[in-house]
């Protein structure tokens, strides 16, 4: 019966963890609405975070999704060719990228760049007493550090996801024009015909939630860092691992919901 206890304890820890995430998010939201700090300064910090987490991620996300677009086109063409349905490659790439891979790859790159950085930043500040220093200066660490990160991520992730959509489709068109017998214009028309607005909006909505989840995990891990430098490393690692797990889980739930909302067919 040991393993039942183990399952129970793990479940309890997981629920408590999600509770911790909800707490840090709710606190940040409350402090955003009734900010004890100056709003103009809050906006400055949010822009600073958005530059680091969002604008800084543009090159890598562009490159990765461009490649993924080519890969999907190649993989799709491999099968579709046998069916003599090469004209469907554009639609396949468009739907796979906008519904799923654009937002997901964006989220994973941002976890690696920013989720880990949030945990390391806040964890180090905890170890060096900087968080305590902020408190004694009447600067709430959640209002000062976390709230701007939430704004930045909730705004930047959908922007990055749209960029990822564009670059992924562009990647698909690279294959389409070179090896798939499309003209560039023809590929784009085929893409437009295959896409519906909700393919893009569902991806964008998901990426807003991803942004919030990544911020919550990164900051929560940072605040729960223990004493010492190796603890910062540990919380950075778990920020990345837990964020990836959480993002995939959220993706699953949202995809399921969108599927049901469409009537299940």
């Amino acid at each position, binding site marked *: 019966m040991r393993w039942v206890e183990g399952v129970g304890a793990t479940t309890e820890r997981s629920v408590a963890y999600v509770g911790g995430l909800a707490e840090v998010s709710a606190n940040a939201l409350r402090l955003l609405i009734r900010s004890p700090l100056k709003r103009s300064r809050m906006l400055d910090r949010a822009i600073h975070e958005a530059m680091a987490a969002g604008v800084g991620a543009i090159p890598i996300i562009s490159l990765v999704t461009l490649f993924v677009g080519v890969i999907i086109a190649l993989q799709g063409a491999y099968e579709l060719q046998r069916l003599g349905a090469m004209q469907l490659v554009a639609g396949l790439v468009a739907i796979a990228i906008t519904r799923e891979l654009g937002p997901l790859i964006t989220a994973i790159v941002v976890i690696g760049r920013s989720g880990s950085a949030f945990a390391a*930043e806040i964890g180090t500040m905890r170890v060096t007493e900087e968080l305590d220093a902020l408190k004694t200066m009447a*600067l709430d660490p959640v209002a000062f550090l976390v709230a701007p990160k939430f704004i930045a991520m909730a705004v930047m992730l959908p922007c990055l996801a749209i960029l990822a959509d564009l670059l992924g489709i562009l990647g698909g068109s690279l294959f389409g024009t070179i090896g798939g017998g499309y003209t560039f214009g023809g590929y784009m028309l085929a893409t437009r015909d295959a896409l519906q607005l909700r393919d893009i909006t569902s991806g964008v909505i998901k990426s807003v939630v991803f942004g919030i989840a990544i911020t919550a995990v990164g900051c929560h891990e940072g605040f729960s860092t223990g004493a010492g430098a190796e603890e910062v490393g540990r919380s950075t690692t778990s920020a990345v691992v837990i964020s990836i797990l959480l993002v995939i889980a959220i993706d699953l739930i949202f995809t399921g919901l969108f599927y049901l909302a469409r009537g299940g067919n």
Partner: protein
Amino acid sequence: MAPSDSQDPVISVRDLRVRFGDREVLHGLTFEVRRGETLVVIGGSGSGKSTMLRALVGLEKPSSGEVRIKGVDLSTASAREMDAIRKRIGLAFQGGALIGSLSVGGNIALQLLEHTTLERSTIDVMVRIKLEQVGLSGFERYSPSQLSGGMRKRAAFARAMALDPEILFFDEPSAGLDPITAAGIDDLILSLKKAYGLTMVVVTHELASAFLIADRMVLIDHGSIAAMGPVEEVRNSKDPRVRQFLDRIADSTQEDVVDHMRIFTEGIR
């Protein structure tokens, strides 16, 4: 000259107890800090003096007892009241705790930018003045990591004084510094005291520095107050615990054995 007893206490601590898990580290401290005095808290490593300082500024929650600053009980104060108090106090951390992502000037300007409506140009002038007071003029643009330990401590003093607080707290101001730099820090504290008549609480284990800057002293030993009073009274105390600390006598080996046995038996229990 120490202020008279009739003056109202700025900080009053009554039966302060703090526990971490099931280990109590402060066993009911009661003392007051009067307006304009410098209270030096001395005690060995692990005596609980840093925990006490953290409780005084509301970073550590007392498990029982109360801490009042200017009459407000910290454990029942609302967030707004707490912020109001914290704008009137300054704390210089042992390691400086300067915000690493900001420059030295940015650290000192931080509270002025967040809590006042002063013009940026005025704030820049104030930052320069504060840095000059601690002998760091010209270091505005340096990053905290580019400063030496002593400079970082002085920058932390400047930051603690940014809002011209009524009460200043120092955690180990001269720990880990060479004798010359440490003497410089003592001079700095004395000059602040003379110039502004601030109420100061200094936690230290440097005896020479403690006797130099204190009006009154508190000796904390194993989480309780072993002695408290004006400097001369503590210096001449006959209490064995006080004498042991002041005369720098190591714990006897016999006690060590008892301690070891205690650790051993607690481990079994």
